[in-house]
């Protein structure tokens, strides 16, 4: 696309008030657009380098393998949009997985266990929300403490990894809908997409969602505008916690086990996905769909590494770092060019 389409016409001086001509593409979408472009480029490069890469099966796997991360990134998006951050999600995923495994191994049915497992996340989110809002503890620290807490509880609940044999979970893990050549979707994938859809509607079509953006734009202003800042701030952490709880459930389905060391560093993956998706960590600007793209980018990087197949452990890390770098720099340049 031509750059000049995006610059404002310098001639035709507009009259009072209406001088800001609407851009063909809203500036706010640029980072997401950047993500899409780089994603397409990655697919193209991957497809040209590796056989069997651009197949339905591989693409489906990217979503299937990352459905839990999608859900977590969605929750994280809410928090980051308010200008906060949630470091506890990785540990909450582990905790709810452990609780799930513990409950199943103690004979509770899926009908009892599943809601409770998600509730674990909700409760931790609530604790964080109260710490952040009522006690004005910085989100980074409140969620870091929650991370230690959740991880600590993991060892209490499940000192060893516990397999899950519950028939519902097994069925959920096994079910595949789709075509024979591998373009399939799992119940987890469907749940993830549903969460994305709900989050999208919530963020863009409800007052709560708009308040989230407003808080990110300026908490003080939002307060003075008479918006329910307190409730909203607590709620975003509850949402993030709940998403992490659900993510933990999806992970438990994905791995059919609960393990205390699950999800170490997963919060960074989620944050990276959100940021790659074009959301600003300072809050107020970004889209949940961007976060989904961010997860896909991370998933694709991982896939490319596997397809490459010759990277040693250290080159793997360097490669991931370099791809991340190329990615953020490209995206940044795209955005600057368009400004």
């Amino acid at each position, binding site marked *: 696309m031509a750059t000049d389409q995006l610059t404002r016409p310098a001639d035709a001086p507009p009259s009072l008030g209406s001088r800001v001509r609407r851009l063909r593409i809203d500036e706010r979408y640029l980072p997401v657009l950047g993500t899409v472009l780089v994603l397409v480029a990655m697919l193209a490069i991957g497809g040209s380098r590796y056989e069997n890469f651009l197949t339905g099966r591989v693409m489906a796997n990217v979503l299937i393998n990352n459905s839990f991360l999608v859900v977590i990134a969605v929750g994280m998006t809410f928090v980051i949009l308010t200008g906060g951050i949630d470091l506890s999600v990785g540990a909450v995923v582990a905790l709810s997985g452990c609780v799930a495994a513990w409950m199943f191994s103690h004979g509770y049915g899926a009908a009892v266990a599943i809601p409770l497992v998600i509730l674990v996340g909700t409760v931790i989110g609530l604790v964080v929300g109260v710490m952040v809002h009522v006690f004005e503890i910085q989100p980074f620290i409140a969620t*870091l403490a929650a991370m230690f807490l959740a991880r*600590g509880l993991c060892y209490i609940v499940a000192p060893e990894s516990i397999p899950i044999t519950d028939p519902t979970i097994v069925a959920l893990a096994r079910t595949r809908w789709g075509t024979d050549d591998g373009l399939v979707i799992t119940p987890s994938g469907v749940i993830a997409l549903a969460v994305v859809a709900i989050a999208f509607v919530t963020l863009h079509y409800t007052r709560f969602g708009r308040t989230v953006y407003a808080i990110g734009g300026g908490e003080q202003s939002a307060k003075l505008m008479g918006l329910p800042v307190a409730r909203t701030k607590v709620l975003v952490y509850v949402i993030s916690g709940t998403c992490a709880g659900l993510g933990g459930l999806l992970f438990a389905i994905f791995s059919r086990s609960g393990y205390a060391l699950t999800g170490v560093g997963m919060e960074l993956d989620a944050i990276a996905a959100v940021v790659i998706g074009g959301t600003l960590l300072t809050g107020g600007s970004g889209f949940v769909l961007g976060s989904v793209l961010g997860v896909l980018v991370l998933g694709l990087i991982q896939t490319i590494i596997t397809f490459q197949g010759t990277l040693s452990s*250290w080159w793997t890390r360097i490669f991931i770092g370099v791809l*991340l*770098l190329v990615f953020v*720099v490209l995206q940044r340049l795209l955005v600057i060019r368009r400004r």
Partner: protein
Amino acid sequence: MSAVGSLTRHRLFWPVVALGVLLLACVLKSHTFLDIAVRDGHLYGGPIDILRRSSVLLLVALGMTLVIATRGIDLSVGAVMAIAGAVALSQIAASDNPGSLAVVGSAVGSAVLVCLLIGVFNGFLVSVVGIQPIIATLVLMTAGRGIAMLITGGQITTVTSAPFKTIATGYWLGLPVAALIAGFFFLAMALITRRTALGVLIESVGINPVASRLAGVRARTIVWTVYVLCAFFACVAGLIRTSDIMAADANNAGLFIELDAILAVVIGGTSLAGGKFSLVGTLVGVLVITTLTFSVTILGIPANAVSLFKALVVILVCLLQSPVVRHKLRARRRQTAPAPVEVPA
């Protein structure tokens, strides 16, 4: 009364209390904990151990404080530590004479050089390209460890080199060299930031970058500089950590230290939103965290409960330190003894 009041109201009151409580618990468990003995002209004992052990975290937190003051964050410090160790030790290991001062000197020098380059790279991404700090440094957090492993070939490089060993385990004037190094840099930075205008300019950039730029402050250069400083301190920390075990462990050197460092900075009262920072606060934060880690072993907390124990202490300190609780406590005190507030006209 009012002296006590202003003391308890101080930002660092509760962290210091926490430190005291942890030390007390350790003494109750192990009565000789606080004893300091002189052995071969060196000081030994719990407090000395804590000082020596704080050195690594103090250095990392020192750089982190400055970065955080500019509204940034540096996740790559752990990886930088690993690289510093890998560069230095692989050089010493490759030399014919690992015990020579010159070899150690050049190894340390090249480690510092490499780390400064890393700092320049981080700073460039943040200040020039304009990438959000957490992501900009995430790049090296991931790749950096890979680079360190590339240098060591994935193995743990072990050497025997007396001069290098001195860095972490040596004593000078009866005090551990590591603590002296960290103390030196701490004092140097404290002096530089407060005796020159660097401190206030860093704060200014952290509080309002736009206004600072318009006021003529070299916002970009300052941000760039703090990342270089942060990498440098991480490098020194990495060398100490490496010298401590005389092995370059690319995978585990400084793993998750960024979280501890950030925690220390925040416990010390510096806000992650940037702006006003306190190096003394950071020192207190570092001592609290080091003592906390140390006390886990002394108190014999079961391995499975360590994380929970840490979480509870951190939450408690943060809660007590939070503005709301401090305000509540103050209000209660005022109710019991109402003091007239003098206001200058």
